[in-house]
């Protein structure tokens, strides 16, 4: 005989946390006996720790600011979220955002002295390094933060694929993250052109020519990146405008959307237990701040002790220096375009490569829609791709 409906609520109340975690189990629960039995003492179900308030006490400047900001509401909103307790990967997003902020701050300072024309660009960077107080430090911080930013963006994307965190309902978080990756690489590409050195000139020429092999929009893209037919002052002007205005503004918007989507559909469930998770606020945010402090120490150490030489000035009437290689994140592509056959399947080698990269990009972007359950094969493919890219990068340097 099945249990009468009026006896269900008492048991349902006791098992509420478990049911929330596994809602599908509710229907398989055995029916309660019709004769009431004495209550059996149950150990209390583990409850996630509530976030602790750091709100300032009322009164005083801090209290006034908290009132005007609506701090209670912000705290309550953050308090609903949790983060993994022991996962380094979960810090990568915050570190990447921090590196973007370091670049913005140091970049704003560099703009005060940089001159975006071929005749004076390198000279102005030289002046920043040699004459402006702490100019060498600010420039080195900017350059190192840029490299680490791209590295963290790529690592962040890789870990999201390998851990299959792109699964629904994370579609928009994933897509906005990919948009941020494209914007970040654009930021690095345009920034590397600005010193107008030999390396910068070659990168502008080869990068835009490679982009010119993109299916359908290639020719337009090449001219757009160059600011004309050739690599000239127009190229530097375009790179400068995009590096200091268009891309930072776009990236800010994309990152804001990324965070909004992440908060809208959190990766970690709000009812996850204390064993594996901790409150996002203040615990995780404090941990994140500590990690970012460590990153800042790394950047400063690199900026002070690892020199980033400027290189000779660009001269369009000189051949490209022997053994020129692109930035490290382009090394796998360099290895392929250097050693691949002239034609693949009857298509010009670089055109085939860029076309294949575009197709792969579309597949990666569509991952949450293709692999909705997060197959382990996707994870293995990510590791395989990482190994292949590393091997290609090493090969490019041979």
């Amino acid at each position, binding site marked *: 005989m099945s249990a009468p409906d009026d006896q269900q609520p008492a048991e349902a109340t006791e098992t509420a946390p478990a049911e929330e975690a596994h809602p599908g189990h509710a229907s398989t629960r055995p029916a309660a006996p019709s004769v009431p039995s004495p209550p059996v003492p149950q150990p209390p179900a583990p409850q996630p720790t509530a976030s602790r308030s750091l709100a300032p006490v009322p009164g005083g400047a801090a209290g006034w600011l908290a009132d005007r900001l609506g701090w209670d509401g912000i705290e309550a909103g953050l308090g609903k979220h949790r983060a993994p307790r022991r996962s380094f990967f979960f810090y990568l997003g915050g570190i990447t955002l921090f590196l973007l902020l370091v670049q913005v701050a140091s970049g704003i300072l560099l703009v005060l002295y940089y001159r975006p024309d071929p005749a004076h660009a390198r000279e102005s960077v030289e002046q920043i390094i040699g004459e402006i107080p702490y100019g060498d430090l600010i420039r080195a911080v900017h350059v190192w933060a840029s490299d680490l930013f791209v590295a963290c963006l790529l690592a962040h994307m890789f870990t999201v694929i390998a851990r299959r965190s792109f699964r629904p309902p994370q579609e928009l978080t994933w897509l906005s993250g990919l948009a941020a990756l494209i914007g970040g690489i654009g930021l690095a590409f345009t920034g590397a052109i600005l010193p107008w050195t030999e390396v910068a000139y070659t990168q502008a*020429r080869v990068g835009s020519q490679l982009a010119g092999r993109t299916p359908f929009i290639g020719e337009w893209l090449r001219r757009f990146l160059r600011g004309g037919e050739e690599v000239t002052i127009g190229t530097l002007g375009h790179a400068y405008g995009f590096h200091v205005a268009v891309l930072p503004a776009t990236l800010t918007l994309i990152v804001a959307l990324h965070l909004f989507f992440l908060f809208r559909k959190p990766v970690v469930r709000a009812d996850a237990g204390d064993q594996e998770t901790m409150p996002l606020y203040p615990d995780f945010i404090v941990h994140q701040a500590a990690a970012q402090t460590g990153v800042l120490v790394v950047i400063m150490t690199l900026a002070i002790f690892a020199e980033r030489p400027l290189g000779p000035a660009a001269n369009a009437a000189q051949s490209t220096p022997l053994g020129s290689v692109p930035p490290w994140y382009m090394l796998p592509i360099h290895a392929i375009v250097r050693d691949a056959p002239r034609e693949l399947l009857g298509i010009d080698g670089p055109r085939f490569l860029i076309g294949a990269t575009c197709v792969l990009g579309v597949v990666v972007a569509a991952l949450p829609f293709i692999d909705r359950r997060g197959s382990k094969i996707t994870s293995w493919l990510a590791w395989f791709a990482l190994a292949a890219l590393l091997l290609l990068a090493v090969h490019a340097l041979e």
Partner: protein
Amino acid sequence: MASNDDPNNVPRRDVLGAAVGGSAAAFALAVVYPVARFVEPPSRPSGGPTMVGKLEEFPLDGAKMVMVDDRPVLVFRLQDGQVRAFSALCTHLQCVVAFSAERRQIECPCHRGVYSMDGQNIDGPPPRPLDELLVTVNEGSVIVTAAR
């Protein structure tokens, strides 16, 4: 007066919605199109013939790099007195090539492409020969004409 249930009757709200949506789309287009055209650089016609120097400035049986229409050009002055000019942009990915006097060939330093002295691609990834430009020598002046 037409009733809302009449399938031929388009409700006023829908008409207004379509009008507002259409106006918004037209407004967006009116903003985006000029911006898109503005950021697209204009095409410049070729600068025509360019005097790149006096004949004696070019080493006999050697090559010299000059600029023609913002493009690097390799000008060869051969033993037989002939002067030839090739675009110095590798046909692979447009690295600027160099003439190796030692190996008597043109080399791309980026991706190991190799061309013969008459611009033919002989090794590496370049898919076709270097572009040759028209050269004339007029009263001792070397004039190169770029073709776009």
